[in-house]
């Protein structure tokens, strides 16, 4: 990334200059193509004059040969011009897509805060495509200008007044079209809203099909969809009628324009000022020029959309990182001593606690927001507003977030699994191949695998949504355990697992993590029962600290938090 935050302008120019070779090639070839297209009506006129009117067979063959060469040239120009234009567009979009993904995944985070995942994915696809399209539009625009230039020159050579009539009339006609089109845009956006609502409703109803079926509410849902569909129908018919009249009026205007050319050209031809062939060429050119002119207005619209998309991409690429500073490596080897000194962040109001190397520490935070704040600080997704967190005596804020996460793994409760097999998911994160099997055993994944068609080799779809909540949690836990980091923080890893299995998993975690620092952020008594020590976070501070059985016996607040 260059100096200064990215802006719409730098994103756009980057997309164009990055593909400069393809853009220039495409523009040149498009110019050749459009110039050739403009000459076709001229050539028809020449054939009529020189051959059909008063020439011999040789003239005819000669001029048909010229037409053939022209066709071959413009066809070739189009073929390779379109290809390099598309290549420039697609490659620029690809680069931007990778850039957006890289920024989102950056160790220092900060890009997701302003956008939902769906919106970010759409920026990486639709917006990247839109910016890429600017390359194509640039090339097409150059071609259109060449067409206008050639056609206009040809007309002016035939006759200055006729040329002026066409060159003034054609843009006027397009201006009229845009003027007429404006209210249409409004109507069609209402129409699209209705259509989008109906389509969204249908998808939503299908997504909730089990709920509907469970309640016998499917007929009511069908009625609701029918109503939305009827509203959408009424809106589209209104919009279509407006569009039809728009097209009709445009056709009238074009026809009148041709009649005007016919009137002037006809008078000039009868007066002998221009030849018959030139009259034919003028009429043909008048119609042809509408094409490049409308390309020009299309290019304008693409530029506007490209700019808007580039601005959206720039907000992602230029999003401020969530943490700044700190590029050191953690001490090697990591002993795993973790200490918090008066940490304040969000709902944390001065948390001080200490985990000794190798300790299995339970943290009970009845308020889920408190737990989330603590976890974000430990993963260095944010730096606390005040206070300090030390790993082996070194403040986290001085460590590179990526390196830090090789030492401390904070496994989130919302377990995102990825495409691939169950085993792939665990192996991808494993410190060593040998770490996989014990981790699978400790998380009791064997039972999960038994229920799947291909065992641990079963492919997981849609971020593991094909698994039940309990299955997903166990796979995610195995993955976290396989990573074998010196410090492991687990957040509510077994909420969707039945009591008997949970107790087995608790023992497994204890056995596997022996000697490595482990924090269990949970209210589950089965997990807390295997910890060395538990701290209770309430109202943002450590309210109690002790062994699980002692706290259960002596602390009513703790008992309430854990047992009900």
């Amino acid at each position, binding site marked *: 990334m260059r100096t200064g935050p990215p802006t719409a302008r730098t994103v756009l120019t980057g997309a164009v200059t990055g593909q400069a070779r393809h853009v220039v090639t495409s523009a040149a070839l498009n110019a050749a193509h459009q110039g050739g297209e403009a000459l076709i*009506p001229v050539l028809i006129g020449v*054939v*009529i004059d020189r*051959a*059909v*009117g008063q020439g011999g*067979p040789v003239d005819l063959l000669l001029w048909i040969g010229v*037409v*053939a060469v022209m*066709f071959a040239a*413009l066809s070739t120009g*189009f*073929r390779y011009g*379109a290809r390099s234009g598309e290549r420039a567009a697609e*490659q620029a*979009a690809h680069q931007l*897509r990778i850039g957006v*993904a890289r920024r989102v995944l950056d160790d220092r985070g900060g890009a*997701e805060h302003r956008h939902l995942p769906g919106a970010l*994915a759409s920026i990486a696809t639709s917006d990247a495509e839109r910016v890429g399209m600017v390359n194509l539009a640039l090339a097409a625009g150059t071609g259109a200008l060449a067409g206008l230039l050639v056609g206009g020159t040809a007309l002016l050579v035939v006759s200055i007044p006729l040329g002026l009539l066409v060159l003034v009339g054609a843009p006027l006609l397009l201006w009229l079209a845009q003027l007429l089109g404006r209210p249409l845009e409004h109507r069609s956006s209402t129409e699209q809203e209705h259509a989008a609502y109906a*389509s*969204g*409703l249908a*998808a939503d109803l299908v997504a*909730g099909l*089990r*709920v*509907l*079926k469970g*309640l*016998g509410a*499917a007929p*009511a849902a069908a009625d*609701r969809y*029918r109503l939305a*569909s*009827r509203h959408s129908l009424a809106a589209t*018919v209104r919009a*279509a009628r407006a569009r039809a009249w728009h*097209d*009709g009026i445009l*056709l009238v205007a074009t026809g*009148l324009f041709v*009649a005007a050319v*016919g009137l002037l050209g*006809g008078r000039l*031809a*009868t007066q002998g000022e221009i030849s018959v062939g030139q*009259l034919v060429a003028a009429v*043909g050119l008048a119609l042809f020029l509408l094409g490049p002119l409308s390309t020009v207005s299309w290019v304008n619209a693409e530029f506007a959309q490209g700019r808007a998309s580039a601005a959206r991409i720039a907000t992602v690429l230029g999003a401020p990182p969530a943490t700044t500073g700190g590029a050191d490596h953690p001490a090697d080897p990591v002993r795993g001593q973790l200490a918090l000194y008066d940490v304040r962040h969000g709902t944390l109001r001065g948390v001080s606690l200490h985990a000794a190397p190798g300790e299995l520490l339970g943290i009970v935070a009845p308020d889920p927001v408190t737990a989330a704040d603590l976890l974000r600080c430990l993963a260095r997704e944010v730096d606390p507003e005040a206070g300090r967190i030390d790993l082996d005596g070194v403040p986290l804020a001085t460590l590179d977030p990526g390196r830090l*996460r090789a030492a401390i793994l904070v496994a989130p409760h919302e377990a995102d699994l*990825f*495409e691939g097999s169950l085993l792939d998911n665990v192996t991808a994160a494993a410190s060593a191949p040998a770490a996989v099997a014990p981790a699978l055993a400790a998380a009791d994944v064997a039972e999960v695998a038994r229920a799947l068609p291909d065992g641990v080799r079963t492919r997981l779809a849609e*971020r593991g949504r094909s698994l039940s909540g309990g299955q997903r949690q166990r796979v995610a836990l195995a993955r976290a355990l396989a*990573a074998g980091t010196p410090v492991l923080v687990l957040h509510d890893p077994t909420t*969707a697992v039945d*009591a008997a299995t949970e107790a087995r998993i608790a023992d497994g975690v204890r056995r596997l993590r022996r000697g490595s620092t482990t924090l269990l952020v949970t209210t589950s*008594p089965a997990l807390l029962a295997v910890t060395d020590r538990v701290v209770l976070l309430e109202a943002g501070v450590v309210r109690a600290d002790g062994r699980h059985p002692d706290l259960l*016996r002596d602390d009513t607040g703790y008992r309430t938090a854990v047992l*009900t």
Partner: protein
Amino acid sequence: MTAAGPDNGADLSAAEADTLLPTATGPQVRAALRDLIRPRRLLAIRGFGLLLAATAVGLLTAPLLGRIVDLAVDGRPPGAVTGPVLLLAAVAVGQGVLLALGLSLVARLGEGMLAELRERFVDRVLALPLEQVERAGSGDLTARVTGDVTVIAEAVRTALPQLARALLTILLTLVGLAVLDWRFLLAALLAVPVQLHTVRWYGRRALPLYARQRVALGAQQQQLLDTIGGAGTVRAFRLTEPHLARVAERSTAAVDLTLRGIGLVTRFYGRLNLAEFIGLSAVLVAGFLLVRADAVSVGTAAAAALYFHNLFNPLNAALSLVDDAQSAAASLFRLVGVSRLASPARSVTHSPDSAQAIGTSGPAQVTDPAGTPDTVGPVEVPDGGNPVGVPDRVGPPGATGLQIEVKGLRYAYTPGHDVLHDVSFSVAPNERVALVGTSGAGKTTLAKLIAGVHQPDSGVIRLGGVPVDELDTGVAGRTVALISQEVHVFAGPLVEDLRLARPGAGEDQIHAALDRVDALDWVLALPDGLATVVGDGGHRLTPAQEQQLALARLVLAAPPIAILDEATAEAGSVGARLLETAATRALRGRTGLVVAHRLTQAAEADRIIVLDAGRVAEIGTHHDLVAAQGRYAALWSAWAGTRG
């Protein structure tokens, strides 16, 4: 031009055989289209008639211009041009007005057919047996509901009118050429073999390529959603580089296919250019020969050349619309495939109240699940055939539930691997029974069987004395409600979500239902109260709130039998406690079977059924079972043991 015929349908159905949702055959699609067009025959005739007239009028332009050419060739005075020019202007106006009227009518025709098609489709989808949907996966269905409907709508809105205009122009231009001189027509037709060949050549290559491109784009989108949606996890596990590599790989694959598509398109147009050249030169040569032979004037020859030159655009438009037409046809095959699924048999229409097996102690309109005397003969929806107009019955405390009887139930998802073996028990009206067992014991499967989602392989389930499979689906849906682990909040105002359970429910009924599940306070505290937009893209609710909504829907739907298989775990222990209370209140006045995820739910039930590896291991009250020192007692001590 060549809309996808039965061959394409067959290809598609072969490719999608594993999705299990059917794709229609050619004759079925044609029959469906005939059904849609029949009531709109007049509209179609008027619309296309007007378009035809508009095109015909438009074709007068070229001969009029030819006439002007002839005037110049004949050396007539400039004033003679005025007549043809005025006619040109009249042609322009006439053509424009006719076109506008024609397009309006064609749009009304297309949109009306489209609306009916999508409504039929959604109707049918919502009526599909859940078992079938689960086997096929909801992804395919969602894709058809959104993607395919949109593709067809796009085609109807843009491709259909364009195609109609282009085809009419081509047809009438050819007629026009013939009128000028039949030999011009012959000359122009020389281009046709090249064009036909090109379209065939293109269609063969484009369809599979675009199918692969769509798959690649879908994979790219999925990978981005995976990676970006899981960004936190990717960072935590330091998987950034492998994920970027995957994104790049998917993106490159999509880009490559897109570029191959463009290569194909440009070759397509290259061949069409050749056809244009052949046709144009042929017409010019014909003009030359005919003028030499004094068969036509130079003006006529010019008009013929102009005619043909004016064909370039509509021809290209029509031929390039082949793409859109083909993908729309593919979508149509998929929509009609589902729309044609037979609506569930409704020949047997027992409803439990007609069987005398129920001990009805409450007022009739409370127990009656299907139609109370005042709503006998449920209103038939014109197309869907589903009864609407849910009987106006409230579920007041003290209402009466129905009995559940299960005998010798056996079920396997895959033959040979029975999930349930010979399960028998019964639940008395208004009794609350908890279903207990470890993960995989078959609790959820049993719940689904009783709710009629799956059909047992053997054994009988009776609700209020009537076998489940003899219940009319509409009636069954309202006899037994299943609140499953899957939570879904319907997008839109919260009150509309609730009204799905009971259309037309008044505000007081809604309030009462929310109050009964302890949700009224927080609902009224939402930014817009009951009108707050929730669900996808709306106000986010907590998992516990979503469960409360599900229970409020149950109260409004007021079925005599309710089966709860909720996930209370995600709500945290405090939330779970709250939900259990809400569930108990929602179950009041009906028979309840509760899949207990926390044993506190079991302890409070009237009776407990312990399932173990698909068999009923124990049945009894909490105290009896704890005293019996069996399986339940072991589970309970594991649970209570961890509780101090």
